[in-house]
């Protein structure tokens, strides 16, 4: 029980840390990666809370699809700047 509590607390702290990094950093790529990390911590937290289905959704949408999408759009913006 205490180990579970510790892991939960660590995940929560990691989420807050990743969120702060995403908010405060100046580089967009770092912010996107930090947001993905936040989702990853959240999905670990869902596993710890015995909700593996929600964790899978969070991992697939939050940290997979959204991060990819952000990088795709970033690439497009960079291409338009080059023109």
């Amino acid at each position, binding site marked *: 029980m205490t180990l579970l509590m510790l892991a939960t607390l660590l995940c929560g702290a990691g989420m807050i840390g990743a969120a702060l990094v995403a908010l405060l950093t100046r580089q967009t790529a770092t912010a996107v990666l930090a947001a993905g990390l936040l989702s990853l911590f959240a999905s670990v937290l869902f596993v710890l809370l015995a909700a593996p289905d929600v964790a899978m959704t969070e991992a*697939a949408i939050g940290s997979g699809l959204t991060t990819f999408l952000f990088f795709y759009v970033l690439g497009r913006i960079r291409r338009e700047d080059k023109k």
Partner: protein
Amino acid sequence: MIRNALIGLMLFILGSAFLTLTMGFEPATELNRTAAYYATHAQEEVGAQNVVTAVLITWRGLDTLGEVTVLFLTAAIVSLVLSRSKAPKGASGSGFLPSGELLTTGTKMLLPLIALLGAYVMANGHLTPGGGFQGGAILASGALLMLLADPSRRFGHKIIHRVESASGLAFVGLGLLGMLFAGGFLDNKLLPLGQFGALFSAGIIPIVSVLIGLKVGAEFASILESLEETEDA
């Protein structure tokens, strides 16, 4: 100054609201009536190991249909809005920066694995965590990875739309067949329950799960595709 004070005030209000919620939280010692019914009847009534999928597809199948419809509407609206700035044929994607050796090679290696994982998650929705929605999202992220690695490549417009319409129609059709031959819309007893824990068991759940996965994957992919095909401003 005032702005910061207002933000601080908002944070304080939110924090105190959550604090009172957390303080008043007492973990439930037993399941409530609905949850207890689901937990005890999942095996004999639905035959699914994963109770969550049993709830999502059988007992709350109509809600899942609504969810998929919302996603379909989103995809349709995105494509409607973006079609106004659609690039002329062959013009989009041509000016992309090269994506780099690492990404191209990595995509070639990862894409089959991602597709396999998506198919696994979809087909085993009734046995392991996950199901149609998750599998579809995994498939769509594979499609997006493909788009990232080679932006000039177009995936088939028609195929995606056909897959989407066919799986949607089949989903609703299965539901209607359930009304005709079994207990009601999307009733699970349309097919025999089979052996508990086998891949082909739990009635129509595996089929519906695969259909939902294909539909969700196609919807996400079509959103990405319309993003890809817009002209640069």
